[in-house]
């Protein structure tokens, strides 16, 4: 099987000069600068198949954006190899650029003072999209993103959600096979986030496009990505199934009880860690493999009205990975 994205032992270091605050700091920095090496990405390897959607997880400054920039060809690696669609990204050959796209949620590529449709026309020429392909693309994007009525308004007059939809459309007009998305849903409200997610899934389904995205919203990752990369301090500390990650990090499940009789904390704590208890409700954290046995015992012990067994929120798990540095080497 050929991989569409292949990264081998990628490292990207920066030299950043240090400046102490204040006038004397400036003067000293002017005379002799001290440099510090920032290891944004270090010894990262992975392969991605065509059509996969992979989520990049990591706290701010972990190296996610740097990795995306190297993959898309904006930065050249300090060492290691990067191949995307069979090209070395950094060569930025036109045939390569026509197959990829980069969307950054916090930056904007549309012409600010003109309607988005003007930017589309420029992109059409720049990517040499034929007239019929352009009409096809426009029809599809207008339908999927519900762009009617938005295209002819000046970009600066659009709401953030409308603008993001136009940004996506402009970035996908040439039907790229590989999408690099850096926080594509940042700042959007919950409904709009869901729309963008649905759109990305549909685009992936229709065109078999490969998507690599970063997001701070776990809902994005849960909805879109079966596979995740966890990156921390520039190191890839996890590459695999999102579900497997959840199991590995959190060996417990939650049993939520609703009872007919008042609950005594003492009765329950021998079954597992008691997370919350009220008069007729309780939540117990129980080791995964014992959940069904515990549930059965609880039925015998208490007059139970309802029981649910749940995985912890992914959000909570990811939070723990980084605060407790569970995966760090």
């Amino acid at each position, binding site marked *: 099987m050929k991989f569409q994205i292949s990264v081998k032992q990628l490292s990207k270091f*920066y*030299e950043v000069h240090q400046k102490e605050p204040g006038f004397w700091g400036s003067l000293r920095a002017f005379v002799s600068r001290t440099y510090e090496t920032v290891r944004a990405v270090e010894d990262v390897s992975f392969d991605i198949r065509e059509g996969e959607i992979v989520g990049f997880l990591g706290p701010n400054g972990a190296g996610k954006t740097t990795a995306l*920039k190297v993959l*898309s*060809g*904006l*930065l*050249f690696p300090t060492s290691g190899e990067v191949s995307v669609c069979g090209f070395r990204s*950094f060569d*930025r050959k*036109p045939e390569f*650029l*026509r197959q*990829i*796209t*980069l969307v950054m949620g916090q*930056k*904007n*590529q549309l*012409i600010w*003072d*003109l309607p988005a449709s*003007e*930017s589309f*026309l*420029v*992109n*059409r*020429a*720049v*990517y*040499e999209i034929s007239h019929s392909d352009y009409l096809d693309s426009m029809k599809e994007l207008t339908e999927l993103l519900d762009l009617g009525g938005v295209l002819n308004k000046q970009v600066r007059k659009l709401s953030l959600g409308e603008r993001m939809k136009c940004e996506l459309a402009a970035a996908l007009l040439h039907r790229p096979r590989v999408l690099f998305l850096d926080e594509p849903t940042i700042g959007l409200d919950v409904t709009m986030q869901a729309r963008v997610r649905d759109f990305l899934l549909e685009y992936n389904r229709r065109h078999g496009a490969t998507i690599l995205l970063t997001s701070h919203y776990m809902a994005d990752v849960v909805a879109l990505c079966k596979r995740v990369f966890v990156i921390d301090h520039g190191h890839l500390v996890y590459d695999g199934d999102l579900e497997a990650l959840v199991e590995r990090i959190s060996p417990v499940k939650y049993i939520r009880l609703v009872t007919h009789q008042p609950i005594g904390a003492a009765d329950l704590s021998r079954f597992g860690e008691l997370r919350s208890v009220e008069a007729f409700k309780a939540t117990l954290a129980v080791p995964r493999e014992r959940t069904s046995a515990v549930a059965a015992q609880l039925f015998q012990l208490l007059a139970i009205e309802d029981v649910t067994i749940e995985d912890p929120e992914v959000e909570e798990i990811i939070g723990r990975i980084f605060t407790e540095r569970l995966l760090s080497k």
Partner: protein
Amino acid sequence: MKKFLAEFRASWNLIIEYRVMVLIWMLTIVLPLIMLAVWLSIAEKGAVQGYDRSTFISYYLAALVVRNFTGMWFIWEMDSEMRLGALSFRLLKPMDPIVHYLAYACSSKPFRVLILGPASIVALVFLPGLTWAVDPLNIAVFVVSLAGALLILFLMQYTIGLMGFWITRSLSVNDAWFFTYSLASGYLIPLDLFPPGIREFLWYLPFRYTMSFPVELLMGRLSGAEILQGIAIQWVWVAAMYGINRWVWRRGLRHYSAVGA
């Protein structure tokens, strides 16, 4: 070319969007008029090195026209795009950003032709002392020299803009450049009025070919041989500037990609 036209179209739409602004910009090119007023008061006492009232009028109005057709201000846009990271998007498109900036720099020119063309005809008819050589052949050569002037200026400015890869404020370099340009191109003072040694020296720098040369052409002050020589030197400078620009561009990209896009 198709890409250039698409970029040009978009920038032209911006100009239409802000036509009043462009008109105001055109009116702010008053430096030649101020210089004209100064020289006219000096010339009242008699001609200065062969320049009389009529010559000064013809010179500075021609300078006004040339400045309008060759002046460009895209470096401010370039500066903000480089600092805010919008350049990254341009680098990820299958088109060299130079096409965008050239289209952007040229986009207001048709608008200026529309306004200055008729205005020049009116001035030629009604303004005593204004003498330009407006036979078709001379106008054709003048247009070629304007194109050369525009390209030299564009490439100079674009190269200065590219310094933004290394320094945060390429605009301050641009200020220094404008000072040099104003003096060495004949924009402020006709090169004929410089001392002989300096004048000859300036003939070989690119600046003359961005202002003084087209102006002298329009005034009909050059012989056939001088015109041919001027056009030749001008386009050699276009080629040289392009070479320098591409060299800086490649170095800059390498730097940009190394330290953070």
